[in-house]
């Protein structure tokens, strides 16, 4: 899927976020963020101790002004991590720091001032807008909640926002059902921007959209970033989208970050075998090129997050796996002569230009960006 008019141009805002390992202007910091969902069951007398390890010990820094892409298969914990960042879900353990302030244990009411600074864009343009409310009150809701503006003033600001995201301000009194998917997503964007947040967490903002509309919304988000100096966490399973929008990319696998790097480094020299597998699954629009390309596959399926594999979680499917991979959890660290911003969690990282050995024949299941691949193809 090509990304329309903006092409492959670098999308960094200033020099922030490029390179530098010594935390320049960290806006949001996650320290060992873990979220487990207890599994119901186990009978009346004995409670089940099983839990879905949705997110397991994620350390991430989001720098001011950058776009951090978060990629992974369906079920890798991306959306859960997003909801931990925005404190929609309480953490099992770990810390969330916004601008150096710990917001992990704040109560609902204490959190309100921070809510203005961190906003979210949702995946489903149909489920994220209340069908019984008019567009004006949907976008104006944050103003009402924070008592920023009301009456004519609120209407004026809502219409400003509608204009900003490319909606006709005259449609102020319409219902969400009267808009198309792309327009609805614009409404969601306008709502997220109402309070002039610093950080916007976009949870698969374009996955539910038609391919033709996808580029428009992605470009809108990019333009708004330039205009308003926003910081994005951009979650997607579509690697081509993330390549287009991100400054840095974090690759997630079963609740953990397995590789974190600047966009160019990640695509040029992927270190983690999983990243390589994901990359080879990006559909290429040119059929000839697609034929020629070696498609790396990983055997097996995404493991159950209730009982994640020991050691490196990718080892049951990894073509490079050795015995140590099942025993020792690899640390997220710099490999070879990589810049300090390029981290990978792998015992046997891929060298520059190294191809993965083909997985053994048999029940070979393709690893790809899950449903996104199917939808794009």
């Amino acid at each position, binding site marked *: 899927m090509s990304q329309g008019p903006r092409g492959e141009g670098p999308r960094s805002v200033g020099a922030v976020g490029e390179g530098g390992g010594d935390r320049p202007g960290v806006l949001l910091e996650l320290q060992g963020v873990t979220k487990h969902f207890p599994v119901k069951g186990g009978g009346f007398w004995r409670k089940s101790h099983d839990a879905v390890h949705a997110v397991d010990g994620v350390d991430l820094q989001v720098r001011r002004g950058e776009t951090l892409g978060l990629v992974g298969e369906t079920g890798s914990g991306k959306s859960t991590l997003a909801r931990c960042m925005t404190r929609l879900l309480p953490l099992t353990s770990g810390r969330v720091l916004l601008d150096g302030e710990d917001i992990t244990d704040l109560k609902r009411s204490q959190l309100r001032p921070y809510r203005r600074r961190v906003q979210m864009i949702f995946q489903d343009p149909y489920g994220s807008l209340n069908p019984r409310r008019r567009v004006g009150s949907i976008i104006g809701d944050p103003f009402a909640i924070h008592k920023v503006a009301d009456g004519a003033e609120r209407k004026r600001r809502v219409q400003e926002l509608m204009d900003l995201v490319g909606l006709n301000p005259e449609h102020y009194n319409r219902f969400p059902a009267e808009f*198309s998917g792309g327009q609805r997503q614009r409404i969601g964007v306008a709502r997220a921007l109402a309070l002039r947040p610093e950080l916007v967490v976009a949870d698969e903002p374009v996955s539910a959209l038609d391919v033709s509309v996808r580029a428009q919304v992605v470009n809108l988000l990019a333009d708004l970033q330039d205009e308003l100096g926003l910081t994005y966490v951009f979650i997607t399973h579509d690697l081509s989208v993330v390549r287009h929008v991100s400054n840095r990319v974090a690759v997630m696998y079963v609740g953990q970050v397995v590789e974190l790097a600047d966009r160019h480094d990640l695509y040029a020299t992927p270190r983690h075998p999983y990243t390589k597998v994901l990359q080879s699954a990006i559909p290429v629009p040119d059929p000839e090129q697609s034929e020629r390309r070696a498609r790396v596959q990983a055997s097996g399926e995404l493991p159950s997050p209730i009982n994640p594999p020991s050691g490196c979680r990718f080892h049951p499917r990894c073509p490079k796996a050795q015995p140590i991979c099942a025993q020792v959890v690899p640390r997220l660290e710099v490999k070879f002569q990589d810049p300090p911003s390029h981290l990978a969690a792998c015992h046997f990282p891929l060298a520059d230009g190294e191809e993965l050995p083909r997985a053994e024949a048999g029940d070979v299941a393709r690893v790809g960006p899950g449903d996104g691949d199917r*939808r794009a193809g």
Partner: protein
Amino acid sequence: MATGTSQPGEAVPAGPVPAVAGPAGAGRDLASLGPGPTSPELAEASGGPGPAGLYEAGEARSHGSVLRLSLQTFVENKLAIAGLAILVLLVLFCFVGPHLYVTNQKSLNPAISNYPPSSAHPLGTDGEGFDVLGRLMVAGQSSLEIGMAAGVAAAIWGTLYGAVSAVAGGVIDAVMMRIVDTLYSLPTLFLLILLSAIFAPNLPLMIIVLTFVAWLGPARLVRGEALSLRTREYVEAVKVAGGTRSRIVVRHIVPNAIGTIMVNTSFLIADAILALAALSYLGLGLPDTTPTWGGMLSNGTTVIFDGYWWQLYPAGVAIVLTVVAFNFIGDALRDSLDVRLQRR
């Protein structure tokens, strides 16, 4: 669609040699493909991931809002119109009627007791000498007032209770719903008799008593609805914006459950009118100075063997008509407000 049509398309240039069999075969393929695979694909295109299909639906609906469409469906329902007409007539009968047909409903008049229907008294008189037609009107006022007030009050309280319970979740939800379960396990009539025996019955108290037994249904119903609504992304959006729980309940959960609530309310009103009649019939309703349909029914049964049928049937017919009217309206509301049944 694309794959379905491309296959026969390719078959045509491929088979020009067996000139007869080729196109015929392709034609048969087309015919057999036509109704088969295309229709599910079409269905998928309009209902599945395609925003285009929904976009069109949205455009078509842009002039008539959801509300207007519901209204249209409601109006097209003959039973709904019948129910509404009966209700309007009953209300006119009870509240306007006494001004047109003035009768003495205050002081006893033993001189004219138990008169059969005549031109002076179209529905005769009862044992105390009250005109039955006039009394039917006055009794209807309290029956309708109490029934509607109790039904609406139960719906409002039950809705808030259920929505708050669902949104709060966890222990609060469990405790709140166990209270409902406990009250539900008590027989309604027993509860009604107990409550109206404890409190000296008057009109406001009667409303409270009837509300107390009626709110359990809507509470459960709305909680169930709210449980699914609270996981919607638009509720998450409110949370991210810092909205309070009460905002979520009032602005987001309740408006989206309003269809269910309205349908339920109409049934609640019918039930409350019936319950009031039952209580009055048992002599536990309002005091005799306030006539009710149930009370008239009760008095009527005591004289049925004397042949004074006119004292029994009018009140019975009034009760049945009212309950049937509300049920018709409720059914029609359900049809018109349920999105799944709505025609495009």
